[in-house]
């Protein structure tokens, strides 16, 4: 992100919150703006920036015949559960915010779940843990597609395509990593492949000792679930050690940042989860808008949050209120085929999570070829083709 653009967005968020207009709605962006996941947070912030900009175009969001100016304010949880709770307290109690883009990490989502549920705060989380959603969290929504949705069909397709039989995975030793580790292990087992999961402390940057051991017998390396920076570092160091086997990144969209860290040569041939199809005109327009404003490739999660906010604003309009979050949530639950930047979206997940708060959109498998991610398969929750 261009520095001055980021500073401008940050400044705007502060100014917006300071000048709290009477007919206004503030969206809190609760994410890890510092730490290894900052690229995700920047994507979430940019989505909120664009969504509010669009909503304010004609004088504000029209709800019940009244125009509401949408503004946003950011809160940094520094990728730590304790800081996430503090940030959520500030957001809810100090600033009285009822709509949140975030929490970002699984640990943060789990740690703040009780707060947001009791405060009836509508959240749009990036957390991959299944515990982020549920009947006990009626105000928590997830506008991104997670490992729980894409892991099984993607892994089945990848194992069929590469014939890997013994895959190793490196994941951070925290709530996020452990949940993804279990999900990945099960998905690989279903595909008939043994997955060995190795955990490391999140602050670790030198993976060579671990890689020296785990790559001895492996014919596949799974990096899904790591931050883009970490995935890039592991990939770079694995290639330095002479590993030439296939690499899979089945979790999250890490391609742009991972390519920057690992370099084009090390990343060549890597299979990645591709959350968006830039062949769709609206998605391509969003990508171009991001590039034009921030001067760099966007994180693939960003348009999902934009789509989530589009759905939220639609629900506010239909519910005719910006204050009654119970009514807004109920309206949001009933939305389907909402035109968004990612295509027509609705909600799914009742069977898996006990509540229909998981966004319903197609997803893709990509492969890095000469520094560019190319779509190689299109998937839904049942299969990739």
């Amino acid at each position: 992100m261009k520095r001055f653009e980021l500073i401008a967005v940050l400044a705007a968020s502060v100014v917006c919150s300071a000048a709290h207009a009477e007919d206004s709605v503030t969206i809190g962006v609760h994410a890890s703006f510092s730490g290894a996941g900052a690229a995700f947070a920047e994507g979430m912030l940019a989505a909120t920036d664009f969504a509010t900009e669009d909503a304010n175009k004609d004088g504000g969001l029209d709800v019940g015949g009244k125009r509401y100016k949408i503004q946003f304010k950011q809160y940094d949880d520094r990728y730590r559960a304790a800081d996430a709770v503090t940030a959520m307290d500030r957001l809810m109690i100090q600033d009285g915010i009822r709509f949140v883009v975030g929490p970002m990490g699984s640990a943060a989502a789990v740690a703040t779940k009780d707060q947001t549920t009791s405060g009836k705060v509508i959240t749009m989380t990036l957390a991959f843990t299944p515990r982020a959603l549920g009947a006990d969290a009626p105000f928590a929504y997830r506008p991104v597609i997670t490992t729980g949705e894409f892991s099984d069909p993607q892994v089945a397709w990848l194992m069929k395509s590469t014939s890997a039989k013994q895959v190793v995975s490196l994941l951070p030793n925290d709530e996020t990593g452990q949940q993804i580790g279990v999900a990945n292990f099960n998905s690989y087992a279903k595909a008939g492949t043994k997955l060995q999961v190795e955990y490391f402390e999140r602050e670790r940057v030198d993976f060579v000792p671990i890689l020296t051991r785990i790559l001895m017998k492996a014919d596949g390396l799974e990096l899904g679930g790591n931050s883009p920076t970490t995935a890039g570092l592991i990939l770079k160091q694995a290639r330095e050690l002479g590993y030439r086997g296939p690499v899979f990144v089945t979790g999250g969209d890490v391609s742009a940042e991972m390519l920057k860290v690992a370099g084009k040569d090390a990343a060549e041939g890597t299979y990645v989860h591709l959350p968006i199809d830039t062949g769709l005109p609206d998605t391509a327009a969003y990508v171009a808008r991001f590039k034009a404003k921030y001067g760099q490739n966007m994180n693939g999660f960003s348009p999902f949050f934009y789509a989530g906010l589009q759905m939220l604003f639609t629900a506010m309009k239909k519910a005719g209120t910006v204050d009654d979050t119970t009514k807004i949530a109920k309206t949001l639950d009933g939305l389907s085929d909402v035109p968004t930047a990612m295509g027509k979206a609705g909600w799914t997940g009742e069977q898996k999570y006990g509540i229909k708060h998981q966004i319903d959109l197609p997803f893709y498998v990509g492969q890095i070829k000469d520094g560019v991610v190319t779509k190689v398969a299109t998937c839904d929750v049942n299969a990739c083709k």
Partner: protein
Amino acid sequence: MSMDIILAQTIVNGLMVGMIYVLMAIGFTMVFGIMRIVNFAHGEFYMVGAFLFAILYGSNEMPFAVSVLLAVGATALLGLVMEWVVFRRFRGNELNGMIASVGVALIIQNSALLMWGASARTVPPVVSGVLSVGGIVFPWSRLVVIIGAIVAVVSLNLLIGYTRIGRAMRAVAQDSEIAQVQGIRVDVIFPAAFVLGVSLAAFAGVLMAPVLSVSPFIGLAPTLKAFVIVVIGGLGSVPGAVVGGLLIGLIESFAGTFVSASLSEILQFLVVIAVVLLRPQGLLGRKEREA
């Protein structure tokens, strides 16, 4: 892969990480030994050095040697300013100096975040390829780190052992008041020691930038390691920092390779606890004289 090969690779990995820790810990322990300040901003100078090198060598494609000199020099200048503005007021005041250093660390880290962004950036390798000896693969990028760090440590040893300023630093570390009575200008030695420590951290950052990646958040882990190492080696002891750094690097490498990454962290802190219990002054540190 045979056990001999894995063993050799594990040793090389441990030496590389250990030598970086040595560079970090020497600067950290020197500042403590001479100024009595536990400088938790030390890792941020590592980060600044790495960032400047990434900008000069990676983005602007300047010659390697020029990039190294400019990155280390500019970071040293930043260190000098910080010493003049902040740290000189806390000389000998360990607790307040430590708190001030945490503040300086946060200021430097967040300034870097605003200036350079949160995204990690990579630096093109200074050398590429691997050295293959009898089936053992050593990435050249890592061997360069080991060689660079050895050169830095030997140079520092010569500076401290055989130059006028080095002798003055040792004298100030032993007793600053007596040193001043002997005509040593402690007002020059304090900033000189601080800048030397900062330069070593910046050089460590420069060496590691092409091997790892560079972001505003890379300073914390080396600072914590440096702290652990100087506790093991002995606060204020340069030889202790060398022994402690290599020990931690090898523990990390062996435990990570043969057992698990989590156990390597546990082992390091078990060593720290054992040293604190059995030899509180550190492996090569001296006991504080009681008044």
